[in-house]
Every structure is written in C-alpha cells, then in structure tokens.
C-alpha cells in the first residue's frame, strides 16, 4: 500500500518509515500540513495518516482544505493523533469524509493489523 504520513514528530515519522517500509508498504512522510496537502494534490495514496496537532497548518486545516477542493472523500484519511479529540468531533469529521481515527499511543502490531484491514 502507498501510505503518506503527515506528522510534525520526526521520531515517529522515522520509526514508521522503518516499520511500514519493512513490512512491504510504500511509506512517505512529510513534517507539515502544507507539504502534505501539496503531495495529496500531486499523487494518489491508498492511506493518509494525518496528525491533528501541528504548528502553522494543523490537521484540521488540511481536512478543511481537502473538503474545499472536494478531495476529502477521494482519499482514505486516517487521523493518527495524540490529541484528546472528543468522539463527537471524530463523528463530525467522519461525516465530512474522514475515514477513521487511530489514537496514539498504538502498538506496532495493532497498527499493521488495522492497515491490513483497510487494504481488504
């Protein structure tokens, strides 16, 4: 699967790079929302792992921009966040077109399992 990671945490990006590329996926990551948005416009990804709390251009800004451009439903956007997002907020985002949410911290095996489920 072609996976894009949008997260400002460099450690998590690098570890995901090792883990996901090591398990047969094609993983690319960017550190900011703007860069991520640019990549989503340029390329097609199977899954986009999007962090919410990022400086300057947050995950919410990315979602709003994609919604504006009509690209939100065309991508499988999965929130990959450590923020204390309310369930109601997630429901609202899912209604808008976000696929689902994975809350940090998550175990590697569980993450890979969820990604496999999405592939099916």
């Amino acid at each position, binding site marked *: 699967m072609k996976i894009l990671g949008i997260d400002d*945490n460099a*450690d*998590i990006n690098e*570890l*995901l790079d*090792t*883990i996901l590329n090591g398990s047969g996926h094609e993983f690319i990551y960017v550190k900011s929302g703007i860069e991520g948005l640019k990549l989503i416009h340029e390329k097609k990804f199977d899954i986009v792992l999007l962090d*919410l*709390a990022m*400086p*300057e251009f*947050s995950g*919410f800004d990315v979602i709003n921009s994609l919604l504006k451009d009509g690209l939100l439903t065309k991508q499988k956007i999965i929130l990959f966040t*450590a*923020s*204390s*997002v*309310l369930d*109601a*907020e997630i429901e609202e985002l899912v209604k808008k077109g976000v696929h689902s949410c994975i809350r*940090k*911290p*998550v*175990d*590697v*095996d569980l993450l890979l399992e969820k990604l496999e489920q999405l592939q099916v």
Partner: protein
Amino acid sequence: MVLMTSSSSTQSYYEIANRIVMIALSISIIFLAESLYFGNQALAASSNVKDDCPVFSIKNGCDLSGWLHLIIDGLIAAFLGIFFHHLAHKQSLKLKKIVDEHDAMKKRRREFAIQSLKNHFTTLLFSMSLINKLEPMYASDTKNRDNIKDQITRNYELISRVISDIKNILLFLNDVLEPQIINDVNKLCQTIHQGYVKDVDKQLRLIDYTETKNKINGLCKTFDELHPAVVPVQELFPRTSSNLQSNNRTLNKLNYQEIALYCRRLLKKIDSSK
C-alpha cells in the same frame, strides 16, 4: 468584507459617541451638584441667616434647609453609588476575563502535556517493538550483524532520549498534571531504565516488552479518566488561541486609533462650523 468593515466602524463610532456623551453627562451632574451645594453654602454663609426662608429657597441670606440638604446629599450618594457600582462591575468583568484566559491557558498546557506524553509513548512502543523484532535477527543473521546492531543501538539511544524528554515534560508541566499521573509516568520511566540489561555480547536488551506495553496502555487509560476531553480540541489549538489573542490586541489598538480619528473629525467639524 467592505460592508462588514463599514458596519463595524459605524458601530464603534456609535460606541465612542455614547462614551463621550456619558462622560460629559457625568461631569455636568457632578458640576451641578457641587455648585448647588457649595454655592448655596457660600451664599448662605456670606450673609445673615433669615428665619423666614421657605423650604426650597436658594437666595441671599437663606441657608439650605434640612430637606434640600437631604435631597442634594441623596443625589450625590446615588450618583456615587452608581459610579462605584459601574467601576466594580467593570473590574469584575476584567477579573473574569483574566481568570477565563488563565483557565484556557491551563487547559492548553494540559492538552500539550498529554499530547507530548502520548507522542513519546508511541515512540517508545515503536522503538521497543523494533528492538524486539531485531534481536532474534541479530542472533540468526550473521551477515548483517553489524547493521542490525547499529539499528538496535540507535533505538536504545532514542529510548533514552525520549525518557529524558518525558522527565522534562513532567518537570515543566507538573502544575497541570495530576500527581497520580506524574507518579505513574515516573514509575514507567524507572521500569524502562531497569529493563536494560547487557547480554553476552555487551548488547543492551530490554527485559519485558509486553509488560511495558501494558503499563503504557494502562497509563493512557488513567490519562483519559483523570483528564477527560471536555473541550473540542480545535478550541485548544495554540494557533487559534494566539490568533484570537493577537486579534484582541489589534482590536484594542484599533479602538484607540478610532477614538483619535473621531476626535480629529470632531475638531474639523467645529472648525468648519466657525
């Protein structure tokens, strides 16, 4: 946009005009009350007091009667009462604003602390899992031993750095976290530290990954129980809040600029009317 700007500027002109009228009215009332009271006293003191003065008579030789004294004093007291009430109300609004801002800041700091800790826990879980997977490979794969050893060492270094980052978070944000959380996180850091052992090849090894993983998951549950998410996360975002603060500052600045502009226009009108 232009319409919005013009309507807001009209509103602020109206507010400024209102404020000026209120100030002018207050000064007039004070002036009237003071001049009535002291003027009459002075007038009465300057001449001989007559006994046949009517109740509300204000003229040479007549001191203020007890009734008029009472009415004027009452008016002054009422005015002062309203004025002080207004000041107290204004002050309480300011205090409420300060308390609200402090509360919002505390919530943002708490959210930041929890977010950072959860991010660090994710890093810990990922790197520990990687080490767990690399260790058997290190034993079996003799060709890439050095490479695998490098990867394992890099991950252990990452774990040590993350633990020191977690300790820093606990130190700097301990005012917004529950003591139980601080204790539990400290214990977790200790467990991970104690989990390091050196094997035959003097390679660091983590004793029990599953136990640490369970502890982290348990800790995150405690986080959610002790600091449940009650505010939409969008409201806590630093960017949004800083924008709001800067907007407030700009608004205040604009108000002063508008007052100055309004006064200049008023002076020009007076000049042209002359």
